[in-house]
C-alpha cells in the first residue's frame, strides 16, 4: 500500500470526526441521577469514572481471601472446569501425574516456569517444551495436554488470566485438547478490574503481545443454541489450586 493514500485516508477520517464532534451529543438516558450529574460535566471531564460507578453494581467478587476462594471454586464448577486442590507443588505434581497415567496421555506440552517444572518432572510420558527453541506447531497440536502457569485467577467471574510473556506464549494454552493451569492461592483476586489493574501496572512498559482471560473450557452454542464443550480450544480446563 502506498503511504500517501493511507495518510490521506487517516487525515480525512480524523477531519470528519473533528467536524462531527463540533456539535455535542447529550449524555445517555440513565436510571440513576448520580450518573446523569456525572455525565452532564461532559465526556472529557467525568467526575466519576464509569468503573467507579459500576463497581458496586457488578457481580460480587468476595471481600476476604476465604470468600474469594469459595467464589472462584464455585464459579469454576459452574463453568464446567475441573478443580483440584494441592497443598504444594509436590501435591500438584502427584495429581497431574495421576491424571496423565489414568488417561494414558502420550505427550504433554509445557513452558519453563518455577511452578510448572516440578509438575512436568513427575510425568512419565513424553513432554514438549515450547519456549526453549522454536517448537513444531504440528507436535504441539498432537499433545494431549498443555500445562501453564497463570498471572491471576478472578473470583468474580471464575476467569484465569494468562499472558504470552509469562505463560508459554499464545498457543500452549489454546491448542492442546486439555489445558492444565497451576494457580497459587495468593494469585486469586476479587474482580476483573483488579486483574486489569495487574495488567496495567504489572506489565507497564513491557506489555506482552497477548493477555487472555480464560473463563472455562472452550464452548459453542452454534448448533440449535445447545451447549457443547471443546469447540476449537481445550475441551477441558483443569485448574490446580496450590497452597
Amino acid at each position, binding site marked *: 500500500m502506498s503511504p500517501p493514500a493511507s495518510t490521506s*485516508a487517516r487525515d480525512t477520517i480524523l477531519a470528519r470526526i473533528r467536524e462531527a464532534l463540533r456539535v455535542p451529543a447529550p449524555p445517555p438516558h440513565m436510571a440513576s441521577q448520580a450518573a446523569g450529574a456525572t455525565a452532564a460535566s461532559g465526556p472529557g471531564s467525568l467526575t466519576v469514572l464509569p468503573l467507579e460507578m459500576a463497581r458496586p453494581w457488578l457481580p460480587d467478587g468476595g471481600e476476604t481471601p476465604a470468600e474469594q476462594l469459595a467464589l472462584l471454586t464455585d464459579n469454576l464448577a459452574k463453568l464446567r472446569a475441573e478443580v483440584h486442590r494441592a497443598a504444594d507443588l509436590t501435591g500438584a505434581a502427584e495429581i497431574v501425574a495421576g491424571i496423565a497415567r489414568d488417561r494414558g496421555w502420550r505427550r504433554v506440552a509445557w513452558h519453563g516456569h518455577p511452578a510448572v517444572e516440578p509438575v512436568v518432572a513427575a510425568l512419565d510420558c513424553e513432554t514438549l517444551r515450547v519456549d526453549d527453541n522454536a517448537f513444531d506447531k504440528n507436535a504441539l497440536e498432537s499433545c494431549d495436554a498443555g500445562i501453564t502457569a497463570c498471572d491471576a485467577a478472578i473470583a468474580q467471574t471464575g476467569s484465569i488470566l494468562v499472558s504470552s510473556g509469562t505463560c508459554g506464549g499464545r498457543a500452549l494454552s489454546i*491448542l492442546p485438547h486439555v489445558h492444565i493451569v497451576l494457580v497459587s492461592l495468593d494469585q486469586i483476586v476479587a474482580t476483573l478490574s483488579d486483574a486489569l489493574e495487574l495488567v496495567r501496572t504489572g506489565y507497564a512498559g513491557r506489555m506482552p503481545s497477548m493477555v487472555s482471560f480464560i473463563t472455562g473450557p472452550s464452548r459453542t452454542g452454534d448448533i440449535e443454541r445447545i451447549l457443547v464443550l471443546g469447540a476449537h480450544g481445550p475441551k477441558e480446563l483443569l485448574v490446580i489450586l496450590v497452597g
Partner: protein
Amino acid sequence: MKPGSPAAALHPVHEAEDPHLAKQKFLDDAAEHVRDTGHRAFVRKALGGYYTNRDTQQARYRDWEQARDAASLAKWSAVNRLDELLPKFVAAFEANGGQVHWARNADEARTIILELLRGAKAKAIIKSKCMTSEEIHLNAALEDDGYGVVESDLGEFIQQLRGEPPYHFVFPCMHVRRDEISDLFGRHLGTPPTDSPEELTMIARRHMRRLYVDADVGITGANFLVAETGQISITENEGNARLTAALPRMHIAISGIEKVVANLDDLAVLLPMLATAGAGQPMTCYNTLYAGPRQPGECDGPEEMHVVLLDNARTAILADPEQRDSLHCIRCGACLNVCPIFKNVGGFTYGTTYQGPIGSVITPHLRGLADWNHLSGASSLCGACTDACPVRIDIHHHLLHNRRNAAKTAPNRLERLGHKLFAAVASRPWLFATGGAVFRKTLWLLKKLRLPLLGDWLATRDLPAAPAASFRSQWRARK
C-alpha cells in the same frame, strides 16, 4: 413445512441487487417468513435458553440497571472523544510494533487487506468471526483474487458451507437444524450422518485444526480498541480467534473506528455485560487483548500485526448528535433476541449485515435512508430493544427519528395529501359531521376497495363495526 426448513426455500434476501428493490424484497420475504410457523417456532425455541440464562446472570449483578448506566457512560465518553482517543490508540499500538491502516470505505479496506496478503505471499487464510468483514464483503473479494479463506467459528463455517451470510450477527446459524448441518458436513466433508450437536461440533473441530496450523494469515475482528494501552480486545467462546491470532505468521484485525474505549477499566464493565446481554453468560470464554506482533522473548505469535480502521459512514452517524449513541453498540445482539419483529420475520428478511433493531437504525446511515427507511417500520415500537440494550442506546426512538428524517427529505405525496385533506375536514365542524355520517355508512366498503396505503394495512386487519351515531350526538344524548 418442517421447523426451520431450509432457508433456500424461503428465498433469503442476502442483498438486493438493486437497492431500490430493498423495500419490496423486505415485504415479500417478511410475508413469506411470518407464514412459516415451523421456522418461527424453531427460532423461538433456540432463543428460549437464552432468556433463562440471561435472567440468571443478570440476577448476579448487584444492580443491572445501574451497571447499564456505567456501561453507557463508558461508551458515550469514548465516542464523544473519538478525536482524542483514536489517535491515542494508534500511537500506543504502533509503539508496540503494530501497523495501522485507515479505510474511508469498504473498497479501501478490501484493497488494503488484499495488498497485505500479496505482500505476505499468503496461500491459506483462516478467519475468525468478524461482522466488519461481512460489512465490507471481504470473503468475496478474497475469493475473486484467488485466495482460499476458511471461516473458523462454527456458525460462520456452517454459513460459509451453505453459501449464506450470517442469519443473526451473534448466532450466525441459529435457523439451521442439526440434520441439515449433518447433511451439509456429509456433502462437504464426507462425514457420516449424526443427530448429535456434540458430534457435529467435533467434526468441525477435527477439520479445522489442520487449517490453523497451515494458515499463513489470520484475520479477526475486534470488539474494543483500548486507547490507554494500544490493545485490541477480542471476545469469543470457541477459541478459534485465539488460534487464528496464535499460529499464522500475520494477524490482520478489522475494526470500525467506533470501537475505541478510553482504558482497561472500561473493559471491567463492558466485558461481563457483553457476555450477559449477548449470550446469558457471566463472561465469554475467551476475552483476549492483543498489543501487537510477537514481542522479543515470546515463543510464538505472528511476526506482523495489522489493524484496519474502517469509517464506512460511521462518521456520518457521528455527525448526527441525535443518533450518535448508536455508535455505542457493542454488537451483543440482545436487541435481536428480544425483538418481536426479528422473531417473526427472521434474520435474512432484513437483507442487511446487521439485522434486528440496531441494524434497522444504522443501515439507513450506512446505505442510504431513501432505500432503507422501510426498516424504520420493521418495529412494533414496543421498546424491548431499548430495554435490553446494555449500553442504553435509544433504539426505538431512533427508528422514529429515521422516519421523521425520511419524511423531511423525501415526503410521501400521497400521505401528505391525506393529512391535508383530513386537516381541511377536521377544522370545519360541519364538514367533519357530514363526513363522519357518510363514513359510518360506508366503512365496510374500505375493506372491499384495495385503496393505496390503506389496502396493505387492511389486508391483515379487521375493521371495527361502525357505531350507529357520532360521538357528539351520543354525548348530547347523555346530557
